[in-house]
């Protein structure tokens, strides 16, 4: 009873409040701190899990150096890093228009895979029968058409019957995987389902094999930035994303915007598929896209759907992946460890967004009490 009298107001130790605005430098400081903290935690986890590391603690330098070593210590590694980044950036750009519209397209994996399949199908059937330049053009068209169709199907359903686009696009990924399996069975009568590298349909290279890919994606980044920020269509996408009602009120045809935007997303995924199919693999497997369609969602999101910032996030993710693979190689540990390490760092990076959007306010009474205590 007497206790109750003492407590007048119940105030928790801390509470959260949404930040009205945050200075950009503060936001970046929080992000940087999160990455540093993530790296420290990684170091601790690695120290526990990697045998060679706790036998030889000095090698912790090597552990951190791997993140740089994985991407930058030889010309070949730098080119490979830029290529990986470019492909990831391309798929991230592809998902962005739909995301800005709050159309949760998680089907980039399947749309890109269909792009790869489309262009390889053309190379498989027409390779050697038409001139090289024509083959490449046809492959390009096929990749774009396949990617676009795979993006349009869920968009049409969304616009017509308001189906759930998240589930729909997710399922379309599996359908795409099985279609690839299906064609591999037909194309490879020996039964191994391994097509191997085709002899036709290689993107011409000047300077370096990967240069074309990198330049194309760089141009695309600028184009998409202008399209989203400075064109009427880009503005419409933003309005639909803010509020469908507002868009309808201001005379925007929401259905058209949904369909058009998913068409753009699908086309860009198709382009990514073309870069993978004609620029790199000259083959298709069910793993051709290798989960990048999902990673791209994170890249786009972390960059706040801004194509230019995406260059930073896609570089960061590519660097993390190569670095983690380098750790697996240098310390001879299971391929699962890199995933753990990348996972931890991403957890911190994504977590930091929370502290950018919200601020933690500690109980004031404590402060005054502490001050009085000092006095």
């Amino acid at each position, binding site marked *: 009873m007497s206790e109750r009298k003492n407590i007048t107001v119940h105030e928790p130790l801390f509470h959260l409040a949404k930040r009205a605005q945050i200075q950009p430098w503060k936001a970046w400081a929080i992000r940087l701190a999160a990455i540093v903290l993530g790296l420290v935690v990684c170091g601790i986890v690695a120290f526990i899990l990697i045998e060679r590391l706790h036998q030889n603690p000095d090698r912790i330098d090597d552990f951190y150096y791997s993140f740089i070593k994985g991407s930058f210590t*030889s010309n*070949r*590694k730098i080119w*490979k890093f830029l290529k990986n980044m470019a492909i990831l950036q391309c798929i991230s750009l592809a998902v962005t228009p739909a995301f800005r519209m709050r159309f949760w397209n998680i089907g980039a994996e399947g749309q890109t895979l269909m792009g790869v399949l489309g262009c390889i199908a053309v190379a498989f059937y027409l390779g050697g029968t038409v001139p090289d330049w024509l083959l490449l053009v046809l492959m390009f068209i096929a990749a774009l058409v396949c990617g676009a169709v795979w993006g349009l199907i869920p968009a049409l359903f969304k616009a017509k019957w308001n189906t759930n686009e998240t589930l729909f696009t997710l399922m379309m990924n599996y359908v795409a995987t099985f279609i690839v*399996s299906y064609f591999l*069975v037909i194309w*490879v*009568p*020996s*039964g*191994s*389902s*391994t097509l*191997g*590298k085709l002899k036709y349909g290689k993107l011409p290279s000047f300077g370096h094999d990967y240069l074309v890919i990198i330049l194309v994606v760089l141009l695309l980044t600028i184009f998409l930035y202008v399209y989203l920020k400075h064109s009427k269509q880009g503005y419409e996408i933003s309005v639909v994303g803010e509020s469908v009602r507002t868009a309808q009120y201001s005379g925007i045809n929401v259905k058209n915007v949904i369909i058009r935007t998913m068409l753009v997303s699908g086309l860009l995924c198709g382009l990514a598929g073309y870069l993978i199919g004609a620029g*790199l*693999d000259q*083959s298709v*497997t069910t*793993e*051709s896209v*290798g989960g990048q369609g999902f990673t791209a969602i994170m890249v786009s999101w972390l960059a706040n759907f801004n194509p230019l910032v995406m260059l930073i996030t896609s570089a960061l993710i590519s660097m993390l992946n190569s670095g983690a*693979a380098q750790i*697996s*190689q240098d310390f*001879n540990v*299971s*391929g*699962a460890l890199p995933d753990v390490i990348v996972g931890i760092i991403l957890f911190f990076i994504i977590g930091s967004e929370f502290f950018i959007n919200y601020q933690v306010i500690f109980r004031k009474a404590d402060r005054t009490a502490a001050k009085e205590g000092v006095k």
Partner: protein
Amino acid sequence: MKKLIALVLALVLCLSCFAFTASAEVADVKLGVILLHDENSTYDLNFINGVNEAVAALGLTEDQVIMKRNIPESNECYDAALDLVDEGCTLIFANSFGHETYLLQAAKECPEVQFCHATGTMAHTEKLDNFHNAFAAIYEGRYLAGIAAGMKLNEIKANGQLKGEKPLMGYVGAFTYAEVISGYTSFYLGAKSVCPDVQMKVMFTGSWYDEMEEKNAAQALIDAGCDLISQHADSMGAPTACENAGIPNVSYNGSTVASCPNTFIVSSRINWAPYFQYIVNQAAAGEKIDTDWTGTIASGSVVLTDVNEAAAAAGTVEAIADAKAKLEKAEIKVFDTATEGFITVGGEALTTYTADVDTDLNFTPDTEAVADGYFHESEYRSAPYFDVKIDGIELLNSAF
């Protein structure tokens, strides 16, 4: 006296270790290994164990071996190979069938580096000095494992516990590919050699590694009345389904006795350590590596795990040892076309078969493989090419 002997033995041991590590040539070799997955796949684990065994036997140091895990069958494989070259590797090995065309591309660019590829088919037609294929006569191992299966079926039959009238085996395969067909046929023939009225049903999953699919396929075969299951796929799917259903299982790639103590009988696997030792030694001596290398029982490349006495029929160990000795002496052949009624196709004896040995775009059969009363498997190239569909084996689904 005992102390003296111990001392001498210890000295010999030290010196022999020294002799290995001191060999200057072997110390110059740097081996790069490209793996499709990692330890979580029994297929890749088998390669990793092979590398580690060879490294220990040759006395290689930690920095003489680099393993790249989770390298897909794409341009990534080419990138990985060249990165290994940059790291100073003089000998590069890749373990997955789909790596071949990309590894070949790297081999053409780096003639000074030796490239070895397991399970591939193109070395003997590409004719590069630095590109080699390797496989093992695993069909002999599967034949021996098949004997264990046949004896188990005989036991079940003698106890009157057969599900149907005739002994029936189930087999979970990955793809309708020669490697798998050769594998299940040799397994079937091993069983048939001791249990003449055995029949087999095969179900394909269309994937080398899909735990769920493999488990489902095994369950479907069990439901279809199979008395025993074996598989050619890389996950624990089929063994787990067998353990749950109490159906005996003949495994692949390694022992599964730890998870399946009641149903695991025996497993055949390829031991890659002899091949790794061979290529490192050849590279060290500057000698040519065989374009097509086929490991055998004799070279220690085809091995069987310990028989699990709790599940196997009595006398299995002896029967396997007996057949193994005969195989080594070439007294018996797995794909024996001479013995009447052993291998038949549509009721007829198999007297001629043109196999697809040289890989071309249209996969045209090109080489006569039946001669001297048997099918010459893995002789014209290391990777299997036996893809005859013989009587007694029913394919439940063949669209893979």
